[in-house]
């Protein structure tokens, strides 16, 4: 072999020109400098994180307490951290795109290719590495607590799911430094993303980051569904579950059935690119419409996968902060089920203009409009829950208020787009961009952020700072409105989506309004960061160790904050819906059990991190054609997995005496504490113990 062949054998197509920083040195345009700057931020961020952990001497803690943990609560928190870090990148990319378009009359500072990379990574990140992990994180943390379980059904698989999701996120981050990410949008339609038009690393980065994370999500779905079916506390029939758990169940079902189409679509695209298959090529019998159908067969249920859990979060926060039972529990459950079934029947509305007959289009159009009905039911449920409640305008309620107004508008424009004749007029314009941001930001993001504020005190034992939370929530609402309502107007004016620049001067002033909105969104994100720092600084004053800061109604509030590793000292017997609320009203709460038992919990294991590291190497090896490394990484994953099955000592016991001591100490603190009224819940007096107000509204109806 010549030295060239040796090099290619060892490094594949990875070379100096793969480095985006090298590209900027060779060709220092604004666009390249921005790309190189982003690469530097990734590198410096990684170095900074390593330095910080070393400085805090936290490596051992990080490894033994977090990365190898199988505790669903720790895994949930790690998911949320991943989501928030990725959200920072996604938001900055969004703001950069708004800036480009504001200055995009006849040009702007970004090349069309760079702009395309931005909207591709923005979409991919926001869906797969912000919304999904944030949701998986909150589900992981909250759902087992709400159903009275000790952990997920499959704790190790849970860790592997996190590892695979992190792999996908890592690949997207690495793409800033090495090679280029795809320019083919988050939907990556072939033939544009095929080998003929796009031989570079871009579509490969997209394929492997999305496919690997997608398998993680499928496994999460299986875990959530089995946990809900098999791990509920005694007495908790399905119709006694909190609504959040119902939405999790429906989301899990969507994960189980809607992620496989994504796996199939990505693997077929990979076969086309790597093995010269002809699933989606222009020539030799390929059919790109198969891709479009497969992708949206995943893609549409996906948006309900994202929004259903946030409906669940709003159901919890609105009931809690109104001091009332949720209005119309049963109708909400059935509406949730209806949405998850309907979500599989509407995928074609993503491509009304791609050649089906009018009859096919109208069938899918009507199915899409039908989704507005169960969604409307839910909105009425929430409004009726507020009615005559003791409503407090805490941060989650600010988000809920924004959600009511904005999400309904987004839903209405959705009904407009469900009409194929209107879709023909506005498809591929900014109207569409405005619509889906209008459902995803108020619907999904506001819900997740309200859940973050609601459950943060449960996870960490102190509340988040109220003032900064207010500022952030108001900025999000205003920022969203100023950014995306102008895009509706631009859409009607005919501005195409995914376009770096334009030649109609009439667009420009509207673009500047949208840019102003984007700066507000950036300020909202900054406020969230400041809030976290301020809250950690003031954690003593904000502490709620007794565990029930909001006068909660569900089981997760019936334990100290943060909860012990084993969750419940003794598994509760569930009598009613809103079990903890009823227990407080009828005097069953905070009782010492007659006896404690040993608790068996899963051991820590490094398997999730090994799989994560190997999968990241596998992804990179495939992207850069380093075949020996791909084989090595794949084999090491299989060997790790099989080796794990030979390990029989996978659990440990926590002795009853230790549990009893901890539980009794907590009960003693509860008895010694002075409970606070709902008016004082955002004040320093709040230690996490609530006065019983309006027991008629807390207890289950008799």
């Amino acid at each position, binding site marked *: 072999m010549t030295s060239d062949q040796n090099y290619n054998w060892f490094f594949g197509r990875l070379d100096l020109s793969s480095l985006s920083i090298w590209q900027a040195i060779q060709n220092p345009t604004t666009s390249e400098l921005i790309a190189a700057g982003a690469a530097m931020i990734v590198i410096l961020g990684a170095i900074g994180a390593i330095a910080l952990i070393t400085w805090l001497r936290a490596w051992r803690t990080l490894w033994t307490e977090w990365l190898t943990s199988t505790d669903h609560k720790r895994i949930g928190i790690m998911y949320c951290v991943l989501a928030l870090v990725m959200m920072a990148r996604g938001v900055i990319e969004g703001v950069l795109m708004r800036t480009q378009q504001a200055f995009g009359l006849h040009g702007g500072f970004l090349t069309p290719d760079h702009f395309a990379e931005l909207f591709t990574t923005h979409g991919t990140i926001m869906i797969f590495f912000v919304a999904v992990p944030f949701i998986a994180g909150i589900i992981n943390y909250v759902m087992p607590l709400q159903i009275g379980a000790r952990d997920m059904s499959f704790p190790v698989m849970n860790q592997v799911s996190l590892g695979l999701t992190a792999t996908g996120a890592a690949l997207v981050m690495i793409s800033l430094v090495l090679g280029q990410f795809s320019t083919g949008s988050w939907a990556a339609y072939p033939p544009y993303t095929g080998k003929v038009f796009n031989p570079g690393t871009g579509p490969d980065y997209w394929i492997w980051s999305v496919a690997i994370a997608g398998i993680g999500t499928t496994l999460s779905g299986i875990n959530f569904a089995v946990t809900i079916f*098999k791990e509920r506390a005694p007495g908790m029939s399905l119709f006694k579950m909190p609504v959040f758990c119902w939405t999790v169940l429906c989301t899990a079902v969507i994960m189980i059935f809607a992620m*496989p189409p994504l796996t199939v679509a990505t693997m*077929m695209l990979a076969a086309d690119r790597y093995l010269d298959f*002809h699933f989606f090529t222009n020539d030799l019998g390929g059919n790109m419409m198969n891709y479009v159908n*497969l992708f949206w067969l995943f893609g549409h249920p996906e948006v309900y996968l994202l929004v259903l859990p946030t409906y669940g979060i709003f159901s919890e926060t609105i009931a809690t902060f109104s001091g009332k039972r949720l209005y119309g529990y049963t109708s909400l459950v059935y509406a949730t089920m209806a949405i998850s079934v309907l979500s599989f029947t509407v995928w074609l509305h993503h491509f009304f203009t791609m050649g089906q007959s009018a009859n096919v289009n109208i069938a899918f159009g009507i199915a899409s409009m039908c989704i507005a009905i169960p969604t409307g039911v839910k909105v009425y449920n929430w409004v009726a829950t507020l009615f005559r409640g003791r409503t407090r305008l805490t941060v989650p309620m600010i988000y809920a208020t924004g959600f009511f107004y904005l999400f309904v508008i987004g839903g209405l424009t959705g009904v407009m787009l469900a009409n194929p004749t209107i879709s023909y007029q506005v498809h591929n314009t900014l109207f569409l961009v405005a619509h889906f941001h209008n459902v995803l930001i108020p619907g999904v993001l506001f819900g997740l952020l309200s859940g973050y504020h609601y459950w943060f005190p449960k996870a960490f034992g102190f509340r988040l700072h109220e003032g900064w939370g207010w500022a952030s929530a108001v900025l999000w609402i205003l920022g969203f409105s100023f950014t995306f309502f102008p895009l509706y107007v631009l859409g009607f004016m005919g501005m195409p989506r995914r376009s770096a620049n334009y030649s109609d001067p009439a667009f420009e002033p509207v673009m500047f309004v949208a840019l102003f909105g984007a700066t507000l969104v950036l300020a909202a994100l900054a406020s969230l960061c400041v809030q976290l720092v301020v809250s950690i600084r003031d954690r003593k004053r904000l502490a709620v160790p007794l565990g029930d800061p909001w006068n909660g109604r569900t089981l997760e509030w019936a334990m100290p904050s943060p909860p012990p590793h084993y969750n419940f000292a003794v598994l509760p017997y569930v009598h009613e819906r809103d079990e903890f609320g009823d227990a407080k009203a009828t005097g069953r709460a905070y009782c010492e059990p007659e006896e404690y038992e040993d608790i068996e919990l899963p051991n820590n294991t490094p398997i999730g991190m090994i799989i994560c590291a190997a999968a990241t190497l596998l992804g990179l090896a495939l992207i850069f054609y380093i075949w020996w490394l791909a084989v090595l990484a794949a084999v090491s994953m299989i060997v790790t997995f099989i080796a794990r099955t*030979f390990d029989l000592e996978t659990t440990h016991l926590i002795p009853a005496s230790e549990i009893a001591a901890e539980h009794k100490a907590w009960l003693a603190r509860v008895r010694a504490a002075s409970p606070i009224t709902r008016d004082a819940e955002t004040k320093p007096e709040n230690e996490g113990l609530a006065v019983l107000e309006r027991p008629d509204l807390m207890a289950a109806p008799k």
Partner: protein
Amino acid sequence: MKHPGINLGPHHGTAHDQAEKVVFGFWVFLMSDLIIFGLMFATYVTMTNPVGMAGGPGPKHVFDLASVFAQTMILLTSSLTFGMASLAIRHEQGRNIISIWLYVTLALGLTFLVFEARDFTSMVGLGAVPSRSGYLSAFFGLVPLHGLHVMAGCLWIMVMILQIRAFGMIPLVKTRLLRLGLFWHFLDLVWIGIFTIVYLGGIGT
């Protein structure tokens, strides 16, 4: 009945109780996997037409029905022998009998794979490669995917034979064998679909 499919029965104590959760979880996984096969079938069907074949070889030119029939019989028999293994586990007939049935199943699985590999080789010899047409891409997306599953199943049987020797019939080994059984029968079911839709359907039209 703790779960659908063959149950260990209450006389197995903790293993029977533990089976409820893990076997249910495995059923859910199989449902998800079945969606993948379903979509591969759908793709295959949409590509089985002159446009998809793009002038390349079609089913009539490349399928060896005798060989495929032999594979079908081998795989069906292997499902029967795995069923015998499951019964031996349920009725506690001892690790030797269980292992023998597993060895027979493994041998049948490997024989199936040899036949399948021979078929693919002869197809390649006839110029029927996935890069030739969309139709052949769909074929090589679907049928070898099943073969890959059979390979994984064979590897799993080998691991379980080792674990029976190393650990004996502990509850974990029993519940793993229950899940392996579901997996093996599932592969049979998918093969029935392949035999009917791909091979018989391809030659019939």
